[in-house]
């Protein structure tokens, strides 16, 4: 489900979200509502390294098949995000990536190294959760709107000799920050609900549209993309937390030369776990994220199955 802002990067950034104070909305958002800065920061930055191992793929009927013995596929992404808050409720961010990916079979293999796509993102906290002392009749969730534009700055894929494009997907554990090859504007909404001093739930939905492109030296139109994500976070201290994520991504059928390829829509279910730590009183933050697509039939369609592990280091001021 290639390619949107790299899901793993968003996830790692999520892990970086600091808990300012456990108890109320001011503890900071989790999940997709979290950026590289919090409302109390002005600027922030983070770098992340994510390793992905691709174990197999789902056929068009959802049947999972592992890679043949002797075949290997992996990728290593290095990504960076810089965020800025012109006002406390809005974060503007830009992120880019570089990566190396490879696939080998018993008959040979390919390796490519190159720049990834660049994404611009705006997060706007439209409605904050009620404070505990307000005791509203309807405890509404915090609402954050996330708008993004992914731009195809990645190295052009070799469509004539390569055996692996890096477009392993754009959602879930297989998400690559390497070339999607098309402009993708996306709009998402995150609902954040703090249940107790330590527990927070986030629901996120996002839709993206891909413009037509010639990335593979032929007219192409990637299908639209949808993502639904649920995040649960437990923050035992103001500066640390762990959490779990489940998301379901979907991408429409791809079209070449104006004709959609039948049965080429994608789907992928991904499970994840994260942890973060803020090294008070410094402004450094550390996070890690593990993402995994289970290898059972129906968990995906036309998508690669992968396991990814990312680590990140962030700083905010």
């Amino acid at each position, binding site marked *: 489900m*290639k390619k949107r802002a790299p899901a793993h990067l968003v996830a790692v950034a999520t892990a970086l979200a600091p808990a300012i104070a456990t108890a109320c909305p001011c503890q900071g958002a989790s999940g997709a509502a979290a950026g590289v800065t919090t409302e109390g920061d002005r600027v922030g930055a983070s770098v992340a390294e994510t390793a992905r191992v691709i174990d*197999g*793929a*789902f*056929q*068009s*009927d*959802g*049947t999972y*098949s*592992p*890679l*043949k013995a002797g*075949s290997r596929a992996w990728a290593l992404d290095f990504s960076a995000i810089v965020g800025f808050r012109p006002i406390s409720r809005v974060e503007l961010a830009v992120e880019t990536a570089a990566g190396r990916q490879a696939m080998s*079979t*018993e*008959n*040979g293999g390919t390796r490519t190294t190159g720049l990834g796509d660049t994404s611009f993102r705006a997060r706007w906290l439209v409605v904050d959760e009620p404070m505990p002392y307000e005791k509203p009749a309807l405890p509404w969730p915090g609402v954050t709107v996330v708008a993004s534009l992914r731009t195809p700055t990645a190295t052009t*894929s070799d*469509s004539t000799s*390569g*055996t*692996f*494009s890096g*477009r*392993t997907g754009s959602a879930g554990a297989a998400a690559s920050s390497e070339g999607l*090859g098309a402009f993708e504007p996306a709009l998402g909404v995150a609902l954040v609900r703090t249940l107790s001093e330590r527990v927070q739930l986030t629901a996120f939905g996002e*839709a993206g*549209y891909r413009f037509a492109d010639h*990335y*593979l030296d032929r007219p*192409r*139109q990637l*299908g*639209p*993309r*949808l993502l*639904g994500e649920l995040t649960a976070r437990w923050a035992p201290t103001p500066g640390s937390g762990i959490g779990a994520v489940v998301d*379901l991504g*979907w991408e*429409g*059928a*791809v079209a070449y030369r104006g*004709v*959609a*390829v*039948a*049965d*080429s*829509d*994608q*789907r992928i*279910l991904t499970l994840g776990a994260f942890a973060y730590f803020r090294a008070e009183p410094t402004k450094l933050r550390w996070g890690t994220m593990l993402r995994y697509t289970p290898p*059972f039939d*129906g*968990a995906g*369609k*036309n*998508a*690669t199955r992968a396991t990814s592990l990312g680590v990140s280091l962030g700083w905010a001021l």
Partner: protein
Amino acid sequence: MINAWSRTASVLLASAALTATGCSADKPADDPKFVAGQPLALESAHGLTSVTVTADGGKLEQGTNALLVVLGGADVELVSASSFMPVHGHPGPTPAVTRAGSAYRVTGLEFTMPGLWQVTLDLRAQSETDSADFVVDVP
């Protein structure tokens, strides 16, 4: 059960996507799907010839495969063949095409990973060119 849930969710997501984006999807290309163990009969894209494809050894799998191609048109020849993963956007290694009596053998057709592959046979008859496409869901 999870499979059913996942498919239901997928349909809902798909419907929502089309609604949300206002996208009118192109009409899907009904490239015939080639299933191992059964010969595939199809017409070339511009109607130059009929094409019958069988899998050498009766199976299609990850790794190296071979096809036997029989063309209906007397003057038509199979020039080349190629494979491509339309979803992931990458080709496979270029296979070899050799004449085998009245048929053609496509060898070295390597499916590097499981999933949906599109195979294209490039055809020529004197000054005309044509092609025949089919898809394979590689297990």
